[in-house]
């Protein structure tokens, strides 16, 4: 049974996203979550989890920040708090979260999402063997490589199928520093900033928050054509990253993926439709059909 996960874009969008086909919603909290779509407080989280469970869906918590030594206590406290609220899944990037979850007996609720680090089956299996729920595979590898991972691992491998891809996370306040350097008004907290490399045309979203600076791809990954092939190779969990997406767009995307999975819509046709419909998003297949090279091409 395939499962599509999406970050909760707004608190009042939970039901819309579920009705559109999301089976797992990711909720973010201040401090513990990197790149939150929207941040909830604990009472809001409790309500959100209850609502998601009412629809027999899963509530996941975004625990993907890097924790410093002095922050371990807060990490543990928040982890236990969310566990007590019956959160189903904890996405993590820092292995301290797994250590703490193992200590408290719920490692099986954890998904390791190191963004870039899982690029082969044996590395995926190494983490899966920790008894965790799953791992998120890098979106920097080809469809063929994803399929090999799906075929050669025991456990859940999640693949990001749609959205802007995170290209860089710096702990530094790169925008604030720049605005200070050029004596401009500090617009670092704007979510409408883009970078364009001086010789290139792609517009790459950039923003800054309390965890640093985040830069996203100038293209939007779209896997309508490939999702069923991934599924056939054993990938059961898929994720949509709704950065720079409205609730309506996200719902449409969810519906369309569900239709493609159910073979009600043709993936290739949808891909072309999206390219036409959303020209500003620069719809692409990312690295699914484009292998990266190890060295500069001659």
């Amino acid at each position, binding site marked *: 049974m395939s499962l599509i996960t999406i970050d909760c874009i707004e608190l009042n969008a939970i039901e819309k996203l579920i009705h559109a086909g999301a089976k797992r919603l990711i909720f973010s909290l201040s401090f513990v979550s990197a790149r939150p779509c929207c941040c909830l407080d604990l009472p809001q989280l409790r309500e959100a989890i209850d609502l998601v469970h009412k629809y027999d869906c899963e509530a996941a918590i975004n625990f993907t920040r*890097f*924790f*410093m*030594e*002095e922050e*371990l206590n807060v990490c543990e406290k928040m982890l236990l708090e969310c566990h007590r609220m019956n959160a189903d899944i904890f996405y993590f990037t*820092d*292995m*301290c979260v797994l*250590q703490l979850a193992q200590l408290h007996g719920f490692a099986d609720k954890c998904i390791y999402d*190191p*963004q*870039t*680090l899982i*690029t*082969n089956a*044996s*590395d995926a299996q*190494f*983490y899966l063997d920790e008894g965790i729920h799953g791992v998120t595979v890098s979106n*920097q590898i080809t469809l063929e*490589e994803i399929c*090999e*991972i799906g075929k050669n691992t025991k456990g859940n491998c999640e693949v990001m199928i749609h959205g802007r*891809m995170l*290209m*860089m*996370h*710096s*702990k*530094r*306040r*790169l925008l*604030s*520093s*720049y605005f*200070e*350097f*050029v004596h*401009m008004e500090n*617009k670092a907290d704007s979510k*409408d*900033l*883009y*970078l*364009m*490399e*001086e010789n*290139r045309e792609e*517009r790459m979203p950039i923003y800054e928050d309390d965890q640093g*600076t985040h*830069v996203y791809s*100038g293209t939007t990954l779209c896997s309508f054509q490939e999702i069923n092939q991934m599924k056939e190779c054993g990938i059961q969990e898929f994720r949509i990253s709704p950065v720079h997406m409205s609730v309506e767009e996200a719902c449409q995307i969810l519906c369309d993926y569900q239709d493609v999975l159910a073979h009600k819509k043709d993936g290739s046709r949808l891909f072309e439709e999206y390219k036409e419909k959303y020209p500003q998003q620069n719809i692409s297949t990312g*690295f699914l059909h484009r292998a*990266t*090279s*190890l*060295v*500069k*091409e001659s």
Partner: protein
Amino acid sequence: MKKIELLSPAGDLERLKIAVLYGADAVYIGGKKFSLRSRASNFDLESIEEGVKFASAHGARVHVTVNMIPHQEDLAGLEEYLKELERIGVTAIIAASPTIAMTAKKAAPKLEVHLSTQHSSTNSKVIEFWKSKGIDRVVLARECNLEEIKETTKNSSLPIEVFIHGGMCISYSGRCVLSNHMTNRDANRGGCAQSCRWKYRLFENDKQINDEKELFSMSSKDMMAAHYIKDLMEANVASLKIEGRMKSTYYIATVIRAYRMLIDAIAEDRLNDEFMAFILDELNRAENRPTAVGFYKGLPKANDQLYGVNGAGVTQEYIATILDYDQESEMATILVRNHFTAHCEVEVFGPKYTKKMVLNDCFDELGELVEVANKPMQILKTKIPFVVQEKDMIRRIIDKSDRNVY
């Protein structure tokens, strides 16, 4: 105070030897396979073996980076490669992939496995996890400040290695794929194009908000943490790492020698302000980009970034290497590395000394007087009135006190 390791980079055998001679306790190098930094002239097994022999003869160790984030196709031949490294006598590998780390533990158990900074390890719980997997040392993320390093080291179940000098990834290591997206070169498999150091226009919605003359860049100043070495030694950090496998022999000699002197002075309780000023001056003479202290004193600020200049500050101070010396005639055979004119003011230095002099007449292989040495790698002879050794270096003295640009 425990003895701390000074860990130097080396891009080839020559630089490995320089690093060892100038005071490194250990040198890390990249092999032809499984390593990042594809543009560094990585070592084949034969040169690794020669490097290990040279290092061992001088009481130093060799670590090999096996730190790529491998795709399935990259893993072929891994076990054989690790067994070879073990047979050769390599002390440790630096790995990021658990497959590589665990294969080493199983197939080549004499190799220590050090967890690469690609994992961005920032706390002792992470270290606890890796200890349970048999990892021998963890390289901390460069994002830790001094207090965090001290606290993590205190609670750590494994020895800790930290970066003290050199170029800095602007991103959490291993998580940056700017190069992948913009050039198709995989940053985590040795292809990093350093796209972070490029220039960018900044838009708010559809409007460009920065001036064409002052484009945005993510480029960081290099790290220079000399002021923190004493704290790191007192904190029981195991190893001080210098970045830069692609750096020159002159850079390696200058930086390693300076940190060697600094560490020894601290260990022998003879560090004072004057000596520190000398060390800082020495470090400034290496071909760094402009430097800052990274995260050591907290979150870097605007003046810790590089907005105007991106390249390393190549100074051309380093003018020659000593190849040979005849004590009777006091004639040194030197290899030209950078343009210089005869009779310029220079410093001749080796691992343990620095002496100023005015360069004497230089003669080419035909005995002709050379007024301007402008052919790199040309061999010349010149008189040096004190004993020098092979691999000692000559650098010009340049007064940069009135310069305000890099």
